[in-house]
């Protein structure tokens, strides 16, 4: 803000739009305007150039190719490849939106989407409630608070894939600790990862275990930023605990909770490692979420179906962007300037 803003921002932003469009239509802008913008903004543009280049080359280009692949029938057998010294050219062809029609009218995509939604909503919901409860407790004066905090944060500190293997160890049907404990109590072992319903329960449990620390810490930060005078005033007015929670804590946490819910929804929707390492989507396809299924199409089945995988990838991205837009709009209509 301090530097090089010779014009009002609205004007400057308007400039880009005009330039972007006119370039497309082959109608170059008056050179003076470009030169003027250049002379004012070249510093900023030079400083962002590295990231723009990196994003364009290693994200933009693959993204474009991914969208293109989703419009073709590309698979392992017809993409360009080299066998020994022979270079085989690509022979896949453009099929239009066939892949999208197939995905959206078939049962597999919609079925997987259904479970992905259940998975996301239950993981985020449970994680949020547990995180909120623990944050509220840790926000009080209580003996050993920092020790508890440290212990509760631990799952976040362990690399995710290590934790998932630790849980696989605990869940093991014949030798896992959980079933041994149940056995000690005379209860039959549970097929944690081999029965569709239990497997769903198990993957959600692990993801909640992984996610609570982040949620708790973020909400704790939010709680600490609520001025204690508000609680004192409410107490003076005779508000009950529930009323204080409902009318002070929840609104006070709003900025933090909207953000963490958005973030953890997106993360959970795309949570590859938990499903992939714990069950590989099994038994059958019971725990397969969209991301792991898209991965399976291109890396686990033969012939690898690149087109199908790309189609699912693009659909996931569209769904997430729609979600983020709707979420923002809902917040805005509720008066959140976010």
């Amino acid at each position, binding site marked *: *803000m*301090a*530097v090089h*803003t010779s014009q009002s921002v609205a004007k400057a932003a308007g400039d880009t739009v005009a330039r972007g469009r006119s370039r497309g239509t082959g109608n170059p802008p008056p050179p003076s305007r470009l030169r003027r913008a250049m002379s004012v*903004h070249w*510093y*900023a*543009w030079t*400083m*962002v150039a590295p*990231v723009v280049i*990196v994003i364009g080359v290693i*994200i933009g280009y*693959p*993204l474009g190719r*991914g969208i293109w*692949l989703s419009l073709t029938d590309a698979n392992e057998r017809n993409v360009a490849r080299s066998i020994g010294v022979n270079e085989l050219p690509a022979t896949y062809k453009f099929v239009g939106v066939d892949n999208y029609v197939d995905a959206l009218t078939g049962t597999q995509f919609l079925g997987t989407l259904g479970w992905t939604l259940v998975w996301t909503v239950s993981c985020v919901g449970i994680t949020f*409630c547990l995180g909120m*409860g*623990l944050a509220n*407790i840790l926000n*009080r004066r*209580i*003996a*050993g608070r920092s020790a*508890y905090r*440290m*212990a*509760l*944060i*631990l799952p976040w*500190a*362990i690399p*995710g*894939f*290590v934790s998932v293997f*630790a849980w696989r160890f*605990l869940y093991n049907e014949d*030798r896992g*600790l959980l079933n041994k404990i149940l056995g*000690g109590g005379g209860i039959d072992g549970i097929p944690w990862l081999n029965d569709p319903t239990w497997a769903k329960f198990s993957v959600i449990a692990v993801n909640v*275990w992984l996610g609570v620390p982040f949620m708790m*810490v973020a909400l704790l*930060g939010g709680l600490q930023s609520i001025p204690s005078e508000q609680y004192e005033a409410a107490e003076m007015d005779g508000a009950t*605990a529930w009323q*204080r929670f409902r009318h002070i804590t929840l609104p006070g946490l709003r900025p933090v909770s909207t*953000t963490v819910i958005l*973030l953890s929804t997106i993360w959970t929707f*795309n949570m590859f*490692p938990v499903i992939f390492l714990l069950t590989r989507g099994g038994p059958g396809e019971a725990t397969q979420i*969209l*991301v792991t299924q*898209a*991965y399976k199409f291109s890396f686990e089945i033969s012939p690898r179906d*690149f087109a199908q*995988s*790309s189609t699912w990838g693009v659909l*996931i991205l569209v769904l*997430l962007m729609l979600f*983020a837009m709707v979420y923002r709009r809902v917040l805005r209509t509720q008066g959140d300037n976010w």
Partner: protein
Amino acid sequence: MTTLTETSARHAARRPRRRGDRSPAASVALHVTLIVASVIAVFPVLWVLLTSLKPAKFATTTDFFKETTFENYTNLIKDTEFLSWFGNSVVVAGLSTVIGVFVSATTGYAVSRFRFPGKRGLMWTLLITQMFPVAVLIVPIYNIMAGIGLLNQPAGLVITYLTISVPFCAWMMKGFFDTIPHEIDESGQVDGLTPFGTFWRLILPLAKPGLAVTAFYSFITAWGEVAYASAFMVGDENLTLAGGLQKFVNQYGAQWGPMTAASVLIAIPAALVFLFAQKHLVTGMSAGAVKG
């Protein structure tokens, strides 16, 4: 949900008393809740640690201590490619972090301080890129890497991880630069520094803690990445840790001894650094996220 209601119940028990006082029953309930939660949080990790110290034949027994030994660790290092996996992970995660931070530092500063045409678009791109599912880019990047012969090479994975670390680093660094007062930039201007000079000589040194946190965060993100690493790296010695650990536990059986030992060697250093840095991490995350 239960904790939630219990919490508010406890509010009720506490508030009529003096601030900070609560009934003994409420205190007990609080501690019990926290102890149960802590045990659930710590136990799986602890159990892996204890198992790694047992001889392999007792790996699945329920005894906490049984003939404590380091044989799992020595076997892991002698008989498996663990050290090469570890090295690969260090190289890949380290390089993608360093390059990511290096490339995105100036951008974080520019979007924090300047208004320029295209800024809004760039901010949006940075934000949206972070919600890219791995499924969107993995196939095209795989095909491109196959085309230019970078499959199964650490360099290919480094380039791929830049797709994660660059938008993330730029976004988080913007948050850190936002917390540095603008007066410092102004004083630099008054002293005749160029905008880049201001950034380089004044702001960057002040932002060092932020850079460290960003770097650390993108390092652990790359360290724990599974999908790209599993798809792009094959062959025993090219794997990263995420791929290597899968070798011990597959559909044909499980070698819990080396698996638990490897888990400990991967997790303990990461956990120590994390717990040390977590206060800053949280600030950084919320600075980047909340100001979105």
